[in-house]
C-alpha cells in the first residue's frame, strides 16, 4: 500500500507560535535528544531602488508533494530520525515572516542537524515552487535561489 504524501503547503506565512507549538508537541517523546530547525524568512531586498514587500509563492502541487515524499523517504533511510516535519507557504508572505519550516528530531544531535540541512538543500533544489518578489508600490520580479 502506498502512503499518501503529506500536504506540506500552508496558505500565507507560518506563524512563529506554530513553531513553538510544534516543539511543545515533542515533549512526550522521551527518545528525542536533539531537534534541528530551519526557518526561511522573507527579506525586504532592495532591487534597483525598489523594496520587496512580500513574496508570493506558487507550486505545481501534485508534483511537489510527490517529490517531497521521495525526499522524506530518502532522508529517513539515511539518518536515524525520530520525526521530520516540513511546511512551505503558498500565496503572499510579507517581509519578516516565515515561509519555510523544516524540523527534524533524533536521539543524538548529529542526525537531526545533518538531516535538517540536507532537507533544506533538497527542498530549494528539487521542489517545483516559485517565488514572485512583489515590490512596494508596484511591480514584481521572479525570485532566483542562490545555490
Amino acid at each position, binding site marked *: 500500500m502506498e502512503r499518501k504524501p503529506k500536504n506540506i503547503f500552508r496558505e500565507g506565512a507560518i506563524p512563529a507560535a506554530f513553531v513553538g507549538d510544534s516543539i511543545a508537541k515533542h515533549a512526550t517523546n522521551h527518545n528525542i535528544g536533539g531537534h534541528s530547525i530551519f526557518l526561511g524568512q522573507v527579506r525586504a531586498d532592495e532591487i534597483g531602488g525598489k523594496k520587496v514587500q512580500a513574496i508570493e509563492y506558487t507550486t505545481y502541487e501534485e508534483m511537489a508533494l510527490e517529490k517531497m515524499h521521495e525526499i522524506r523517504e530518502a532522508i529517513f533511510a539515511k539518518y536515524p530520525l525520530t520525526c521530520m516535519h516540513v511546511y512551505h507557504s503558498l500565496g503572499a508572505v510579507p517581509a519578516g515572516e516565515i515561509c519555510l519550516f523544516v524540523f527534524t528530531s533524533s536521539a543524538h544531535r548529529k542526525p537531526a542537524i545533518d538531516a535538517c540541512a540536507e532537507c533544506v538543500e533538497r527542498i530549494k533544489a528539487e521542489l517545483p515552487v516559485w517565488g514572485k518578489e512583489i515590490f512596494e508600490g508596484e511591480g514584481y520580479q521572479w525570485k532566483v*535561489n542562490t545555490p
Partner: protein
Amino acid sequence: MEILFFGQLADMVGKPSWQTDTVQDTDALKARLEATFKGLQQVKYMIAVNKKMVQTNTTLSCTDSIALMPPFSGG
C-alpha cells in the same frame, strides 16, 4: 494534450495552460512550443512528464500530463 506553465513561463506565454495536438516526443514538443511562444527560446526551462523531470528526449502519449517549469525558487 494539455501543457501546464508555471512561474515566469505562465507570465511569458500569458496563460497557465495550453492545448495542442499530441506530439510524438519531448524534442518535438519543444520545437512546437518555441515556434509558438518565441520567448521560450531565450529562457531556461525544464519539462516534467507525469510529474517527473525529463532530461533526455522522451516519448509522449496523449494521456501524459506535461508541465513546463522555470528554475525553482522555493524556500
